[in-house]
């Protein structure tokens, strides 16, 4: 019987990929374990092995085809003696076509529950980008470029972490940096977060500017003592003599079904600590401008990225001196009826919800905080004074959230302007479940935000 070989999922967040190269041709006999093709995801090129034995009856997708969706039939295996014409008609053209038509600015890796907002016209949703030329790049490329530019600018900036060098980065953020800067400045570490974070803090005291990459922020819990007790507090404890100019960066929050120990959002934890600065970019422009500012900042900066956003594309200014000042929020969309405040991937959900709300005649203003310490209270308060309603959006746990802090600030400073209580939309108060259906319920969704807005608008 003929069996279809399907486009495999090769990573937790992969939804489609490029069939880069066939290593077999029609008529070849293949054994289980034999490499059939090379498949490119936005993270890596992977070899794809045969599971079953058989003869390649037909190759259904030509090599070089991009945007092949997971589970699309890519070849047909037949048994010895079986004719290729017995094979089922390929039913793939549609899926591939659809993918090919998707706008280039939507990432090949969008696995978020919400659709990636398409960067429609230049200028929106980045109305606050400086004048001047821009180019389209992914968040991943923006982060890489920010590090490379700052490493060129200052010879004392160096990167350390697990798999940052020879492996080219577990999430390929540091791809190519080892080649350009060498092993002295792109330092592969053993799996010893507490140790290397402490070494980096010491190096910052010794005159260097470390960038510490955590493979994910879940593993920074191993190192949190040095982040807080050593990096954040030393300037104060030394009476201002010596601080820790450094960046701790890496992906934070949920990826896709990686379970309770690999999915936590630490935004509120780090934002609670005096002595730290905390960035949480949404777009590629945020990522580039904030990371450059973080590397130049004389304080320890926590830089919270998001794996699902890595592959998404946005417009980014080409000016090499483009940085984003800390404590300056970005109004992503103007509105009059309600203020949505978010940061990181929450901004994608807030924008998606604002789009939905517009259909119902509700005009939502969307604020992207960009930094959580300092927080741009002024922009939030000015907006709430205009709209009289506020909903906050974040992925983290509800208790002691950034939303809680904003709600109390708004109550204290704009109480008379409020027409409804502030609602905080957060992740659920549970460890992240693995099951696909439960994970969806645990995460914040645009539908929940829309419902919260309707309730504060009494609709």
């Amino acid at each position, binding site marked *: 019987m003929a069996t279809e070989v*399907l486009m*495999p*999922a*090769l*990573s*937790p967040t*992969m939804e489609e990929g490029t069939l880069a190269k066939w290593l077999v041709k029609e008529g070849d006999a293949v054994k*289980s374990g034999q490499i059939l093709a090379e498949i490119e*995801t936005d*993270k*890596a*090129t*992977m*070899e794809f092995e045969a*599971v079953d034995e058989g003869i390649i009856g037909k190759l259904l997708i030509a090599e070089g085809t991009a945007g092949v969706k*997971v*589970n699309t039939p890519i070849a047909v295996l037949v048994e010895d003696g079986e004719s290729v014409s017995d094979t089922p008609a390929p039913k793939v053209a549609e899926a591939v076509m659809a993918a090919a038509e998707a706008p280039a600015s939507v990432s090949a890796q969008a696995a978020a529950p919400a659709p990636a907002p398409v960067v429609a016209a230049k200028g929106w949703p980045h109305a606050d980008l400086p004048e001047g030329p821009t180019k389209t790049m992914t968040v991943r490329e923006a982060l890489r470029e920010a590090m490379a530019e700052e490493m060129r600018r200052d010879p004392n900036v160096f990167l350390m972490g*697990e*798999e940052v060098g*020879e*492996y080219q980065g*577990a999430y390929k953020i540091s791809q190519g940096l080892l080649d350009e800067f060498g092993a002295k400045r792109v330092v*592969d570490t*053993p*799996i*010893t977060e*507490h*140790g290397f974070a402490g070494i980096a803090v010491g190096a910052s005291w010794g005159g260097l500017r470390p960038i510490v990459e955590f493979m994910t922020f*879940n*593993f920074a*819990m*191993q190192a949190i003592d040095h982040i807080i007790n050593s990096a954040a507090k030393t300037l104060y404890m030394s009476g201002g003599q010596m601080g820790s100019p450094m960046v701790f960066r890496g992906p934070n929050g949920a*990826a*896709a*079904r*990686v*379970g*309770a*120990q*690999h999915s936590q959002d630490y935004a509120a934890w780090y934002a609670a600590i005096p002595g730290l600065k905390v960035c949480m970019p949404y777009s590629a422009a945020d990522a580039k401008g904030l990371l450059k500012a973080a590397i130049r900042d004389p304080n320890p900066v926590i830089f919270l990225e998001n794996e699902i956003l890595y592959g998404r594309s946005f417009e980014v200014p080409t000016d090499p001196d483009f940085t984003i000042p800390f404590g300056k929020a970005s109004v992503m969309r103007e509105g009059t009826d309600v203020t949505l405040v978010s940061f990181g991937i929450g901004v994608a959900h807030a924008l998606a919800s604002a789009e939905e709300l517009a259909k119902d005649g509700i005009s939502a203003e969307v604020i992207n905080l960009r930094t959580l310490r300092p927080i741009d209270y002024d922009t939030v308060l000015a907006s709430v004074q205009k709209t009289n309603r506020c909903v906050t959006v974040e992925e983290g746990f509800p208790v002691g959230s950034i939303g809680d802090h904003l709600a109390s600030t708004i109550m204290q400073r704009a109480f008379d302007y409020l027409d409804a209580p502030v609602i905080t939309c957060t992740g*659920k*108060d*549970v*460890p992240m*479940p*693995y*099951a*696909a*259906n*439960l994970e969806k*319920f*645990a995460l914040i969704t645009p539908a929940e935000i829309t419902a919260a807005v309707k309730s504060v608008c009494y609709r």
Partner: protein
Amino acid sequence: MAAKKPAERPNASKDELLKYYREMLLIRRFEEKAGQLYGMGLIGGFCHLYIGQEAVVVGLEAAAKEGDKRVTSYRDHGHMLACGMDPKGVMAELTGRIGGYSKGKGGSMHMFSKEKHFYGGHGIVGAQVPLGAGLAFADKYLGNDNVTFTYFGDGAANQGQVYETYNMAQLWNLPVIFVIENNGYAMGTSVKRSTKSPSLWERGAAYGIKGEAVDGMDVLAVKAAGEKAVAACRAGEGPYILEMMTYRYRGHSMSDPAKYRTREEVEKMRSEKDAIEHVRDLLLQGGLASDDDLKAIDKEIKAQVNESAEFSKDSPEPPVEELWTDIYA
């Protein structure tokens, strides 16, 4: 590692060898199936296969008795099958279904069985090491003679908490066997690139812990070393370190481009050192089993694995209420 040994007269009975063959084959076929289901999108997130390392858990389980405990990392499917957990329940956890060992809430990296004394399934590299010593602490405190097998990787062996644990385990003579599964790589980092220690087990000497390196591709050598370590622990002379020299054939997880080693290196291991082939040779060349006998076992295992896969697809997703259960006791 050395070239393939000619099949010497095995120091094990026919029944034992058949048992090891069956158990190792179950792990391998199960993992191949899991890889397939991942490719089809039925399993999500991280999925770390144990293919190549089967002799380690099967050999050590042969040295264990009822009541002994085990704890390991995220690369845990083999450990669960070897200690007698039901392949159906493991596979259904991989697909995130209610029939899984954690009701679908844990996933590949986080499964547990109180009944089989399997304490997880841990995602933070090195974290299981003090946890294993803690299980041993409880057994010593309660005055039984159980031991705990605490498995961790060569990469995990560099985590600081391993050494804090070594110190206390020896200070308090805990009945814990530290099993370092040295498969040569921690993700893309070879052992040589992460340490200048000549060997990992010898680090225990700094704390006075006995240990040895073992050919982890030879189930009989593993079992013999396991028996020695277990005897020491039961006699109150624990802890003990076993460094299992082994190899993983597949990528670190499903999304590993594997550029850090050559295909030839993997092929060489597979063709010269494969643990299942080794036992197969012992059985066939020793005249202890025929080709047909082994084919029959292969068929049985295949059926068992297919049954687990079917179960894992048919078992429903957990009901939404499960989101809110098991947070507090």
